């Protein structure tokens, strides 16, 4: 046996200090195969057999070592062979991931470009649409830029309610009892503006159409699913002073004063000589169809535009004659723009747009 002390007492069973580690100790102590010691004992304690003396013993040792060498070499060769294939598979996978990523990016870009193109083309077609009622109608329904005098209303959350909407949505109270403007308030104000004679309304530069929704999601107020950041800047085009007076006497005006008194929500109302409201984006046409579908379907870009598409073709840049759009079913031209729903109901009379904003259900 090796010169390692074996701590086990011959017959006493004293508690070893490392009793809990007996497995490790066992593995460490009996690292040599016990067969060697037994064979040595059987030989009668002859401790000189370093190398087997007989030829047979030598041959056995040689064969064993040959076996060992073969096993180790085969293992090494096998591992070596498997390595490049593994690396190759990995590389192929990485390559595939990268390829898919870049193609997805490319497709995304294409989608954006095409969407912009469709928007631009639609705006162009609508700008020249209407069978002799060009321009004016698209402005009224929100599909074209409009300019004119009007009223500007700035609503600000009460002081100390978080800046820029950076309120933790899980911080508890939510909208309740705080000095924050709610979607319901905004709905009321916008409806008041329409009712007081506004012809076009935009909130924070986002034009409202007959299908716009003002809603709340968490802590944010959304207009057409786009979150607003306070202060809320509401622009309404109409007969400035008259609109202002009507609004202040309206229920919405009184409501605003109440908000200011009770919650400290600041509102600033002022008339403007001239404002420009942008066109609404993302309006889908549902019932409008091109007049002459055979020569130029609505999807092809107008003649003035390169087919590859300058995506930033603004609304109404050059009304081209071959992209005219006219409503098919209802006789009123307004149906081409109000896009679906019940076109006849919300056809605005040019003087006072009494359209009620399609507001979503208040909050969950």
């Amino acid at each position, binding site marked *: 046996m090796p010169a390692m002390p074996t701590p086990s007492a011959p017959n006493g069973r004293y508690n070893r200090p490392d009793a809990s580690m007996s497995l490790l100790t066992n593995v460490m102590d009996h*690292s*040599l195969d016990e067969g060697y010691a037994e064979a040595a004992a059987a030989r009668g304690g002859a401790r000189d057999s370093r190398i087997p003396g007989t030829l047979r013993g030598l041959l056995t040792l040689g064969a064993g*070592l*040959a076996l060992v060498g073969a096993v*180790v070499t085969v*293992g090494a060769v096998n591992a070596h062979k498997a390595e490049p294939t593994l690396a190759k598979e990995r590389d192929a996978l990485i390559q595939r991931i990268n390829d898919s990523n870049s193609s997805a990016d490319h497709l995304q870009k294409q989608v954006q470009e095409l969407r912009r193109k469709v928007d631009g083309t639609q705006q162009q077609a609508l700008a020249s649409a209407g069978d002799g009622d060009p321009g004016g109608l698209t402005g009224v329904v929100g599909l074209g830029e409009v300019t004119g005098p009007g009223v500007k209303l700035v609503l600000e959350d009460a002081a100390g309610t978080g800046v820029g909407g950076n309120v933790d949505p899980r911080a508890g109270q939510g909208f309740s009892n705080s000095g924050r403007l709610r979607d319901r308030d905004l709905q009321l104000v916008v409806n008041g503006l329409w009712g007081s004679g506004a012809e076009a309304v935009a909130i924070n530069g986002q034009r409202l159409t007959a299908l716009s929704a003002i809603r709340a999601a968490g802590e944010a107020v959304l207009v057409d699913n786009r979150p607003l950041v306070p202060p809320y800047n509401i622009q309404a085009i109409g007969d400035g002073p008259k609109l202002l007076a009507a609004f202040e006497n309206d229920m919405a005006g009184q409501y605003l004063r109440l908000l200011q008194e009770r919650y400290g929500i600041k509102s600033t109302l002022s008339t403007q000589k001239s404002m420009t409201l942008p066109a609404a984006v993302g309006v889908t046409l549902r019932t409008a169809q091109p007049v002459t579908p055979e020569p130029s379907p609505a999807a092809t870009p107008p003649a003035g535009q390169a087919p590859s598409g300058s995506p930033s073709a603004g609304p109404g840049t050059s009304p081209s004659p071959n992209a005219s759009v006219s409503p098919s079913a209802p006789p009123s031209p307004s149906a081409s723009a109000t896009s679906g729903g019940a076109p006849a109901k919300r056809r605005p009379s040019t003087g006072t747009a009494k359209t009620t904003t399609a507001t979503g259900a208040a909050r969950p």
Partner: protein
Amino acid sequence: MIAVLGLVIGVVVGLFVQPEVPDAVVPYLPIAVVAALDAVFGGVRAMLDGIFNDKVFIVSFLSNVVVAALIVFLGDQLGVGSQLSTGVVVVLGIRIFSNAAAIRRHVFRA
């Protein structure tokens, strides 16, 4: 002399014949290699201790390899193959280490 010759022959055979290892055995080859190394270190240490026995060496080598592969195979069938092979490698590794330490003591007297 014959021993070294046998080792060289084994390496050469492994290198040049390159036997096609069946796929079913491939997972157990690394464990078999570790077991073979353990047997070799044990043999060398026994030789230095003066108690070497060729029969014991051969039998311990073969049984080590087979038992190690069998344990891992059993673990694979039970779904704990990787854990069991870790255990086998730990035990054999500890044995290899302490045998190597004993060899070192014999060779360097330190």
